[in-house]
């Protein structure tokens, strides 16, 4: 797939030209809204930056709608839990957009403990001509007022403001890892390591617990929930993944507490591949329904798997993301890379899968042609407007020109978060503190 590189090096760091990244600027989530007009990113410092696609202009037809910063706000602040003497990180774990119902945009953003509903709205008019206060806002001395006038709305520079409309807190003992908006657009669920809660978007002081896998005795704990998502079309169905590599599909109509699954998806472990780290690499880091709702995609450390909802025994397709890492497990365990949680995304037509890897590489798999490609998100190796060159990693032996050997991969440059425009071939790739947006080549 040819890509035109529109290297929007959006760097939130104050020291823009310097190469180091302050930790607070590390992007922790990327999400397009349902039309693709807006793109939101959350970072470790608790900030959300929203980009808007500019309208395509007839003057410059080759510049198809680029994304510009639309709004920036501080979503979460660091908090301290005095009872447990724990600091609560402000890092934004997930952002999910609500479907647009009026002129304003709504999104849910969450850190480890609290979910917030933000309203992003535009203001381009301002009332002027108050009686009791002057234009600066200072209160006027009533004795100086001699006439009465009606304030009028006058145009002003466009201002985009974000206001927190709801704060959903105190419902999670463990760290929230996912949120998912239901297709009924009234409810959403938040998931932590052991529990899933269902919320009504309007009600903040109450939530319903729909899944609870906490054992009576914590010492018997064997698995945790790693991700969860609602079915895109059926508002009663959702799926959650576990650290043991299994998926559970649940139907909320069956019972109030969905501890018993309707379907259980698990692939039997290959005994030949058993190692110390088998359990870690089988832990599912992300699960996504296809747009059609027919398939599920899961990401574990080394592979991406596509499951058919109708077949529980094994996945439909398995794609190797970076199998060359299989021999490096011990080092990856030592430097904590083995715990990295990669996400995966579908394209709009459910024909291509995309996920990230190390060395700022990301991979795409075409389900129909069975071809895959490795691309790199980096300023040094690609110029703006240039077509991305496919990359290749060589395992050992003779290294061809332009290939990279496994040992020279930079494991600090990891692409964990990517997003695909809902209908067009535009992708957003977060590489540490940089956001890259790529578009299809326009001929």
């Amino acid at each position, binding site marked *: 797939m040819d890509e035109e590189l529109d290297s929007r090096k959006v760097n939130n760091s104050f020291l823009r030209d310097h190469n180091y990244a302050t930790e607070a600027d590390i992007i922790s989530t990327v999400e397009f809204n349902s039309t693709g007009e807006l793109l939101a990113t959350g970072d470790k410092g608790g900030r959300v930056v929203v980009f808007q696609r500019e309208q395509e202009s007839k003057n410059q037809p080759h510049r198809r709608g680029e994304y510009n910063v639309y709004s920036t706000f501080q979503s979460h602040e660091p908090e301290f*839990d005095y009872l*447990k003497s*724990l*600091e*609560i*990180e402000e*890092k934004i774990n997930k952002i999910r957009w609500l479907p647009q119902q009026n002129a304003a945009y709504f999104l849910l953003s969450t850190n*480890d403990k609290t979910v917030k509903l933000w309203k992003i709205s535009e203001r381009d008019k301002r009332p002027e001509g108050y009686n009791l206060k002057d234009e600066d806002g200072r209160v006027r001395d009533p004795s100086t007022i001699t006439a009465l006038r009606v304030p009028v709305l006058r145009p002003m520079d466009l201002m985009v403001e974000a206001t927190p409309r709801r704060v959903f807190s105190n419902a999670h*003992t*463990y*760290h929230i*890892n996912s949120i998912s908006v239901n297709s009924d657009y009234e409810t959403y669920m938040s998931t932590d*390591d*052991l529990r899933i809660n269902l919320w009504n978007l309007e009600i903040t002081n109450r939530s319903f617990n729909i899944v609870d896998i906490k054992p009576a*005795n*914590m*010492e*018997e*704990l*064997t*698995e*945790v929930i*790693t991700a969860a998502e609602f079915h895109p079309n059926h508002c009663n169905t959702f799926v959650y993944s576990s*650290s043991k590599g299994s998926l559970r599909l649940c139907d909320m109509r069956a019972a109030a507490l969905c501890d018993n699954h309707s379907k259980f998806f698990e692939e039997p472990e290959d005994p030949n591949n*058993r*190692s*110390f*780290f*088998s*359990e*870690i690499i089988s*832990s599912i880091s992300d699960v996504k329904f296809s747009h059609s709702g027919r398939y599920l995609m899961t990401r574990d450390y080394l592979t991406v798997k596509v499951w058919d909802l109708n077949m529980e025994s094994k996945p439909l397709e398995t794609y190797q993301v970076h199998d060359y890492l299989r021999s490096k497990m*011990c080092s990856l*365990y*030592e430097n*904590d890379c083995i*715990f990295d949680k990669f996400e995966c995304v579908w394209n709009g037509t459910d024909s291509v899968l995309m996920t990230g890897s190390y060395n700022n590489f990301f991979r795409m798999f075409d389900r129909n042609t069975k071809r895959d490609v490795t691309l790199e998100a980096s300023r040094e190796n690609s110029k703006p407007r240039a077509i991305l060159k496919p990359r290749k990693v060589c395992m050992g032996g003779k290294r061809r020109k332009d290939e990279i050997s496994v040992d020279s991969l930079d494991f600090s440059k990891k692409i964990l978060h990517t997003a695909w425009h809902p209908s067009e071939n535009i992708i957003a790739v977060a590489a540490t503190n940089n956001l890259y947006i790529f578009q299809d080549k326009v001929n």
Partner: protein
Amino acid sequence: MEYKVEAHRIMSISLGKIYNSRVQRGGIKLHKNLLVSLVLRSARQVYLSDYYAGVCLNAQHIEAKEWELMDADREKLIPASERHVGAEDGRASRLQEKDGDSLDPSDVAVTSPVSPAISETQCGSSDCETDADAAVTEGDSRQPPKDHACSHRKRSAEETGVSETPVKRTKVTPNAIVANNEIEEGEEMDTSNVSNLITIFGSGFSGLLSKDSAKSESETDDSDSGSGQICCEQMLKNLNPWTTAIVAF
């Protein structure tokens, strides 16, 4: 033996990770600690299978058979054997000094006789020893055996005798899956390294034991609970103050 070295290294790294997670910003990550503890357990299994295999080769098969018989006998015994208690008290008191959470002396005394039996019956099934028979003969070339882990651990506990330490607990780690046995067996092998780790930890870890029994019950086909289960329950009762702390998390 490369496996042994690597397994020990992985164990040290894992313990280090668990320790570091206590001081990490944002609190303890349950998922990561769970995974680390699983790796730690796998490494321990391999380490012990290796260790035992090494000893067995030296001791010859006949002696090994004798061990199995003795184990079988001991298995049936109610937890507390004089020999272990004697060896342990010294250890227990030493641990108590180190233990920042200052176990009550009576607790220590109670747990010390219990713990050897606990480690013996780690998987909660006394028929592990029959599996151990096969395990012994197979030697050290196997992959980390889940089913046989308990027997190996039990065996090494029997052999060394001295190393039984009362169960260490941590208030902090919620999954709290690392067994004291892992630490104690490490101590048998390489006291200097692992005892440093123990000092660093200060307070103890609660037993892997019940998780093991839960897991191995699901894994081993026929588990004979018997006295093993009783030991586990006794152990769990003693762990009460700690489990409430863990649950509170």
